[in-house]
């Protein structure tokens, strides 16, 4: 019996585009096991990002349900949803989405402000996290002064700020070169193994698929197959 941290049931998302309905997601059922490294894989337009958004509570489904720890997130009000994003889920985006006017340290501190962490504690933890991702020397640099790989590492540190148990990563290596991509993947893998953080990465990067415990293959908004690497 697995402990499912995230589960979807008949999850569908339709978009109206010029009079035709596009089924970005069509009755998707996935079960994410707590503490595993998961990949959502498929060609572009297969619904990876849409699924990512649904699971992260960033967008509402047309029909079907998303459960996080057996709670239907459609039942949550705006406050509870924001709470979920703040405390339980860390997001990593392909385009990093750092706040340009803030330094690396301030970017990592931001989620902790919303979580009500005191100023001194925030700083201490942000420095720790940035050291962990190897950016201890770049604390006061702004995103524009950092390379793409460094920006993504700031984003990882930020995603970890409130000690989430799920990390959602949308094409985390999509804008990075091979070597930097590998570094990011190994940071995520380490987090997963050492802290037991559940990782869900939407990707078509084969290197991410290699390290995953479970791979969900998507095509045209449906789950084509589920591949378990470590059958335990």
């Amino acid at each position, binding site marked *: 019996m697995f402990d499912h941290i995230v589960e979807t049931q008949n999850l569908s998302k339709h978009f109206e585009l010029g009079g035709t309905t596009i089924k970005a997601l069509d009755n998707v059922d996935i079960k994410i096991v707590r503490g595993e490294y998961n990949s959502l894989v498929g060609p572009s337009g297969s619904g990876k990002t849409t699924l990512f958004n649904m699971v992260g509570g960033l967008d509402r489904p047309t029909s079907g349900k998303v459960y996080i720890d057996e709670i239907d997130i459609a039942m949550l009000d705006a406050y509870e949803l924001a709470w979920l994003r703040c405390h*339980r889920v860390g997001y990593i985006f392909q385009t990093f989405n750092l706040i340009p006017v803030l330094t690396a340290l301030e970017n990592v501190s931001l989620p902790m402000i919303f*979580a009500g962490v005191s100023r001194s504690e925030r700083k201490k933890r942000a420095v720790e996290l940035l050291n962990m991702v190897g950016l201890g020397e770049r604390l006061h640099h702004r995103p524009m002064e950092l390379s793409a790989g460094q920006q993504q590492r700031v984003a990882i540190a930020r995603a970890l700020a409130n000690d989430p148990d799920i990390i959602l990563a949308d094409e985390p290596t999509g804008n990075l070169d091979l070597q930097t991509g590998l570094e990011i993947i190994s940071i995520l893998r380490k987090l997963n193994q050492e802290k037991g953080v559940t990782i869900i990465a939407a990707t078509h990067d084969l290197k991410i698929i290699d390290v995953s415990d479970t791979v969900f293959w998507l095509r045209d908004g449906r789950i084509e197959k589920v591949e378990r690497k470590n059958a335990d």
Partner: protein
Amino acid sequence: MARTKNVRDDKRKIELPLLEAFSISFEQIRKRFKRSIIVVGSIALGIALLTHLEMTNIVFAAYMSSAGVTIEAYQFWLVMVSLFVCGVGLINANLIATYERYREIGTMKCLGALDQHVMKIFLIEALIFGLVGGLIGFFVGTLTAVASSCFQLGIDALWKTPLATTLQNLGLTTSLSVGLSIVSTVYPALKAARLNPIEALRHDV
């Protein structure tokens, strides 16, 4: 892992204390300094015109020792139109400023910000713009009014300028400029704060 961190039974909160909101707003203003100057400048200009007319009247009235201060109808309308133009300009500037920050707002919402937190940051910025613009406008307006009055009436007019009325005027114009700044921010800020995170993140400028 045994920890169950559910929304319903976890006591941890999400919040944006006023002091933190102030420091974020302050950073925003500091780091977008050119835009801030333009906004403050347009508020100051409208308020300066208003103050100039009012103070000229006050100085003249005090010099002539007449009881009441009358503002001519055309002056009144001139000021109204200038404040209206100033307000429209501010709404426009604020709309553009919020568009520029859509992605940032989306990001903040992904990190746990509530609509009211986003509103708070924008309104505090508006408050600061209103205060600074109002004060600058008042001093510029008063200075030009007193100077031109003295030029016409002689230096005596300066000593006869009533301090109490002037201070009263300061309070009025500053509240007016803060009000103007906040009112013109509400619509753009509400529009931005209510976006769902995905719409906001998808936004390209």
